[in-house]
């Protein structure tokens, strides 16, 4: 089901957490809400879930065209996964997953055997077979996250909302789980909205990226589009490393990997600048080079290690640097 958000505002006293937010989350998509802390992304997610209330006004939230703003959270049919999982710690994994079904009113509540089957099915879906009797504290962070996901899916939600789903995990687990979630999403095809402060996560994982800043949406688009054509300096800086080059009053944004490095002998005054190597870092597949331009500005450049080896540079060498042609992605 698609999620349609129209003119939603939220203030806490004098502080505006959301200002006139409108957003379409297409049916079956995986959409990322990304932004620095305090940008309002979690508040927006909580309002969609019904855990927070938007300011009174013309604001609307619709699932597949049906207005849900007056439907309480308990009846909205939203699967919500909390940043710290919020598992019921006195219940087993199976009881956690079964909770949503076991609190259904009499007539709608499935039989015990049906609930058991559904729990089994969900455990299989999140690859946690055999852990049904464990308590949350006996599980790793990644396993807890998947229990939380299974618990949210048990009620067959209309949409899935994830608040910083990988925020509390180690780097490696985080990467694995991220990939797993993408495959998982494609399998179940449930419209999913997730919040993250990690731009890399948002770009890698989602179909649609929503960049938020100061209670407003800064830009919405496909990851590639938003990355290559940022609409504002903020988005430019937020979505990856960027060099800010000052030329008089103008500011130019250039990503480190967009800059070519040549031997000083190849210097072309029409396009290049001369610079001196200030720092070299090459402990990964990508090497980072910091150079100092004639006017004292520093420039970060990313290049392949092979290219760096060909140039055989060391600190203090003079090089020619060539930024990309001027028309791309400027503001």
């Amino acid at each position, binding site marked *: 089901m698609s999620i349609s958000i129209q003119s939603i505002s939220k203030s806490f006293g004098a502080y505006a957490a959301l200002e006139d937010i409108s957003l379409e989350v297409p049916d079956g998509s995986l959409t990322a809400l990304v932004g620095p802390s305090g940008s309002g992304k979690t508040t927006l997610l909580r309002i969609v879930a019904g855990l927070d209330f938007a300011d009174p006004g013309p604001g609307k939230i619709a699932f597949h065209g049906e207005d849900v703003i007056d439907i309480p959270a308990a009846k909205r049919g939203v699967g919500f996964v909390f940043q710290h999982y919020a598992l019921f710690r006195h219940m087993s994994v199976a009881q956690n997953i079964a909770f*949503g079904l076991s609190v259904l009113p009499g007539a709608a509540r499935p039989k015990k055997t049906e609930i058991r089957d559904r729990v089994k099915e969900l455990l299989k879906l999140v690859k946690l077979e055999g852990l049904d009797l464990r308590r949350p504290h006996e599980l790793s962070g990644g396993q807890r996250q998947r229990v939380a996901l299974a618990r949210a899916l048990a009620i067959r939600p209309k949409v899935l909302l994830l608040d910083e789903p990988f925020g509390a995990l180690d780097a490696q687990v985080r990467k694995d789980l991220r990939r797993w979630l993408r495959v998982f999403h494609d399998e179940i095809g449930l419209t999913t909205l997730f919040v993250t402060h990690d731009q890399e996560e948002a770009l890698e994982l989602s179909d649609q990226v929503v960049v938020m800043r100061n209670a407003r949406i800064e830009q919405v688009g496909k990851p590639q589009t938003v990355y290559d054509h940022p609409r504002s300096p903020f988005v430019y800086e937020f979505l990856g490393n960027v060099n800010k080059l000052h030329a008089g009053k103008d500011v130019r944004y250039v990503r480190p990997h967009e800059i070519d490095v040549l031997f000083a002998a190849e210097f072309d005054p029409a396009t290049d600048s001369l610079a001196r190597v200030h720092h070299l870092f090459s402990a990964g597949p990508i090497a980072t080079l910091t150079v100092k331009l004639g006017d004292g500005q520093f420039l970060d450049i990313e290049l392949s290690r092979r290219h760096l080896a060909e140039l055989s540079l060391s600190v203090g060498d003079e090089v020619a640097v060539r930024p990309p042609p001027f028309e791309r992605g400027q503001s």
Partner: protein
Amino acid sequence: MSRSTVTTESAPVRLLLIGTAVAFLSLFLLLPLAAVFVEAFRKGWEVFLASLHEEAALDAIKLTLLAAGISVPLNTLFGVSAAWLVTKFKFRGRSLLVSLIDLPFAVSPVIAGLVWVLLFGAKGWFGHWLAEHDIKIIFALPGIVIATVFVTFPFVARELIPLMETQGSDQEEAAVTLGANGWHIFWRVTLPNIKWGLLYGVLLCNARAMGEFGAVSVVSGHISGETNTLPLHVEVLYNEYQFSAAFACATLLAFLALITLSLKTAVEHFTGHSSQNNH
């Protein structure tokens, strides 16, 4: 654990500190406790048992149990509601409410009793109206219960508020999104998470409810066999120079304290154990 850390004191200093603590505890806690038992049995078992079987003593025990039996469940209910209110909701005046909950701890028990006399006594604000409708509060069971409830109100709430504050509302919110109503949330999510803290608070509340002297003394009227609770009965006996009987009744209160202490330790052991499992 290594003993040679920078925070460890030298042996003589340690001995001195431990010695001081033991001496202090013996003098102020163990000695009085021992004195109670020694005095109670000074005239032998028979006198001891007889003083507990005396009608006035039995009535006092009954009244104490009744007063605690009413006020402890009430305060459990109030305490849980208050803790739920201040930890799960944000509203104006919240911190004022938290301070108000502590009020009974700050007020002298005599005042805690006197306010009820001023309100419900024969010459109190509502005294005339109550007399007209033939309702007795002061110098009767209702007064004793009201005074006890007032004095013991903070125990349960005080125990639960910090606990529920650290636990936050995440699990409750998760339960809401899963379709649970308030009833389900309380019984299946909140209560299991606070049960040990709640038990702890109830124990302390009960110990104080049974042992309260000051406030109850003001509202009771000391009618033997009617409005004397156990602590008041002890005082009456003592004032009548029936030392053995007074101390015999006092042993009951001392036992109550010992039982409360051991249950409290057991609860602490349990919660300490389970909190290691919670991350």
